[in-house]
C-alpha cells in the first residue's frame, strides 16, 4: 500500500472508492446509489470549478472568518521545557470548531442541486450546530440526528442548534451516541433522498462524504502553511502536528497540505480517545488494533466483536466517541504516513487543566486529548522542533462535564 505524491489523498481512492484497495468504498443500500452518484458527479465538477472555489473562499473568509490564529504558547513551552509549542486555534472559526467548513460546503452544494432540506448527524454537537448555522445562512431547512446520551451531555450545542431553527431529533437506539446518530441519519436519507441532502459530519461514511469533508477541512492546513512560511520563512525542518482523531475530519484537514513532505520533516500524530483508564472500552480503533469491518458504508478499522456487531465505545469526549475511524486515517496508518496513539479521559482532563492554567486558550475535551500527548512528547524534543496542536474546538460546550469532573470553581475561573 502506497501513498502517491502530487495527488490529493481524497482523490487517491480507486474506481469503487477504496483507498489502498481496502478502506472506504460504498457499502450502501441500493436506494442510496443514485443520490451518491449524483453527489459524486456534482462534487467532481465543483471542486475544479473556479467560480465555486471563489464562492467557497468568500464564505470561508467573510463568514467563517479565515484564517484562524496560529499562536505560540509561550508559557506552556516554558512549563514543558523542550520543543516550541504552538497552536492552530481553529476554534476561532465561526461557531467555535472546524465542523463549519464541511457544513458550509455541503450547504453550498445542496443549494446548487436545488435541495430544500439538509440533514446531518452530530456527536459533540459541533457538526450539528455548524450545519444548523450554515443551513440558516443558506435558507435550507435542517434536521440534526443526535444520540440521546449526547443531547444530555452537550446541552450548549443543542441549544444553539435549536436557536438556529434546526429540528434536533434524539436517537434512542443502541448506545445513544454518535454511531447511532449516523445510522439514524442515513436511514432518514434512505427514505427521503429525493428531496433531502445529507451531510455526514466527519470524514466517514460512503466514499463521497469522506472526500467532501476532507476537501473542506483542508482549509486548516492551507492556512497553516502560509502562516508557517510567514513566521519561519519556510516549513520548519522539524515539525510535528498533533491532532485528536474521532472520525478524523479535523486531523485530516490539519495535515493534508503537508502530506507530500517527508515524515521526518513533518510528522503527523493522531490522538484517539482511550476512554476511562479503568474501562476496557475505548474509541481508539487504530491504537488498539481493531479489525477491519464495515461501518456506515465504509470499510475501516472498527471496534467490533467476533461476529461483526459494532461495539459500544466510551469516552469523556462526545466528539471522539465513535467506534470507527475515517478510511483516510486507516490509509495513512497502513502507509505509515501518520502515527496514532491514544489519551485516556483522565489524561485529557489533566491536559485541559494544564493548558488553561498556562494559556489563554480553552481547548474542548477533544483537542485536550491531543494536548495531552503533545505535552508529554514535547519534553523530549529539541528546542528547534515545532510542535503544533490543532485546538479544533472550544470548551464552552463541555462546561457541564468540566464542572462535574473538576469542580464549579475551576470552570468559572477559566
Amino acid at each position, binding site marked *: 500500500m502506497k501513498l502517491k505524491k502530487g495527488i490529493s489523498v481524497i482523490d487517491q481512492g480507486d474506481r*469503487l472508492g477504496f483507498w489502498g484497495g481496502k478502506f472506504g*468504498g*460504498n*457499502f*450502501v*443500500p*441500493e*436506494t*442510496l*446509489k*443514485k*443520490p451518491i452518484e449524483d453527489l459524486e458527479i456534482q462534487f467532481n465538477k465543483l471542486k475544479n470549478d473556479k467560480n465555486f472555489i471563489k464562492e467557497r473562499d468568500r464564505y470561508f473568509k467573510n463568514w467563517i472568518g479565515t484564517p484562524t490564529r496560529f499562536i505560540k504558547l509561550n508559557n506552556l513551552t516554558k512549563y514543558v521545557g523542550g520543543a516550541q509549542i504552538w497552536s492552530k486555534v481553529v476554534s476561532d472559526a465561526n461557531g467555535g470548531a472546524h465542523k463549519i467548513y464541511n457544513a458550509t460546503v455541503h450547504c453550498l452544494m445542496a443549494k446548487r442541486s436545488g435541495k430544500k432540506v439538509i440533514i446531518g448527524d452530530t456527536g459533540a454537537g459541533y457538526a450539528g450546530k455548524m450545519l444548523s448555522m450554515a443551513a440558516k445562512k443558506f435558507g435550507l431547512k435542517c434536521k440534526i440526528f443526535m444520540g440521546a446520551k449526547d443531547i444530555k451531555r452537550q446541552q450548549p450545542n443543542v441549544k444553539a442548534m435549536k436557536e438556529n431553527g434546526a429540528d434536533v431529533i434524539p436517537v434512542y*437506539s*443502541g448506545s445513544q451516541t454518535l*454511531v*447511532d446518530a449516523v*445510522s439514524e441519519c*442515513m*436511514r432518514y436519507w*434512505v*427514505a*427521503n*433522498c*429525493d428531496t433531502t441532502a445529507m451531510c455526514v459530519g466527519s470524514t466517514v461514511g460512503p466514499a463521497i462524504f469522506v472526500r467532501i469533508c476532507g476537501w473542506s477541512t483542508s482549509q486548516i492546513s492551507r492556512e497553516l502553511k502560509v502562516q508557517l512560511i510567514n513566521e519561519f520563512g519556510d516549513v520548519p525542518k522539524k515539525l510535528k502536528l498533533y491532532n485528536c482523531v474521532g472520525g478524523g475530519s479535523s486531523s485530516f484537514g490539519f495535515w493534508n497540505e503537508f502530506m507530500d513532505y517527508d515524515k521526518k520533516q513533518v510528522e503527523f500524530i493522531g490522538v484517539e480517545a482511550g476512554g476511562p483508564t479503568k474501562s476496557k472500552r475505548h474509541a481508539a480503533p487504530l491504537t488498539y488494533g481493531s*479489525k*477491519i*469491518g*464495515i*461501518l*456506515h*458504508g465504509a470499510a475501516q478499522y472498527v471496534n*467490533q466483536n*467476533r*461476529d*461483526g*456487531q*459494532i461495539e459500544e465505545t466510551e469516552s469523556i469526549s462526545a466528539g471522539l466517541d465513535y467506534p470507527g475511524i475515517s478510511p483516510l486515517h486507516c490509509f495513512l496508518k497502513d502507509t505509515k504516513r501518520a502515527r496514532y496513539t491514544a489519551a485516556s479521559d483522565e489524561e485529557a482532563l489533566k491536559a485541559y487543566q494544564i493548558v488553561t492554567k498556562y494559556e489563554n486558550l480553552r481547548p474542548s475535551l477533544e483537542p485536550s486529548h491531543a494536548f495531552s500527548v503533545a505535552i508529554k512528547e514535547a519534553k523530549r524534543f529539541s528546542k528547534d522542533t515545532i510542535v503544533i496542536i490543532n485546538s479544533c474546538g472550544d470548551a464552552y460546550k463541555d462546561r457541564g462535564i468540566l464542572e462535574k469532573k473538576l469542580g464549579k470553581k475551576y470552570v468559572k475561573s477559566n
Partner: protein
Amino acid sequence: MLNPISLAFKKAKKEKRPALLTYTVAGDSSKKQSLNILKAISNYADILEVGIPHNTPVADGGQIQTSAYRAIKNGIKMNDIFKIVSDFNKSKNSKPVIFMGYYNMIFQYGESNFLNKCKKSGVNGLIVVDLPWPENKIFSKKCKKNSINFIQLLSPTTSNKRLKNITKDSHDMIYYISMLSTTGGKLKVSPKKILANYDKIKKISPKKNCVIGFGITEKNVSNFKNTDGLVVGSQICKEITRSLNNRQNPVINVSRMVSKLRDKIS
C-alpha cells in the same frame, strides 16, 4: 433441476397467486422461539427470509431494529443462526430459506466460510442489504458457484441503465424495493405506481422472479396479487413485539397473521 427458490415460485404460480415471503429475525426473541416461529409460518409462507441481526442497520426501520436488538441482547451469534436454519430444515414442513443481512457479518465470518456454512445448513439464497451492484459482482459469483441464489435489490432510484446491468447479473430472483423508505415504512406510493415499476422490471427481465417488499402489510397486500412474490417483514416483527408486550405467544399470533396474509393473496 430447479433450485428450491425457483420451485417455490413455480408452485405458487401454478396456484395462480404470488409467492408469500416472510421476514423474521433469527433469535427473536430467543433461539428456540424464532425456530418455532419459522416452523409455524412455513405452513403458509413459500419462502422464509431469515434476518441476521446487526446493530448498525442502515436500512431498517424501527420494527426490525427492535427485533434485531432483542435478538442480539439475548446473545444470538452467527453460529446459532446457522443452527436455527439447519434445525428448521430438518422439520417436516420446511421451506426454502433466504438469509438477509449486512455485509460486515459475512465479512467477519469470511466469505468462503460463510458460504460453506450456508450450504451445509441449507440456506438457499442471500440478500445483502449494503452490498450493491457492482460491488457485489465477485461475491455473487461465489454464491452461484455454491448454488446459493444471490438476490439483487432494485429500488425506485435505480436508473434504467443500472436496472439492465443489475438484472443481467442477477440469479433467479430479484427484489424490488417498493418506495424510498427503510423497512416498515408506511406505503407512501400508490400500488399502481409500484406495479408500473414492477412491470418495467419484468419487461426487461421476464424470466426472473421479482418480489416486492417494504411497506407490504395485510392492508395492502391484495393489491399485488398479480406479481411473482411479496415480502412481509416489519408487520411480523411488530406482531412479535406486540405479543411479547401483551404476554401472549408470538408463535401463535404470527402464525395467524401469516395465514391471513396467505388467504388475502390466494
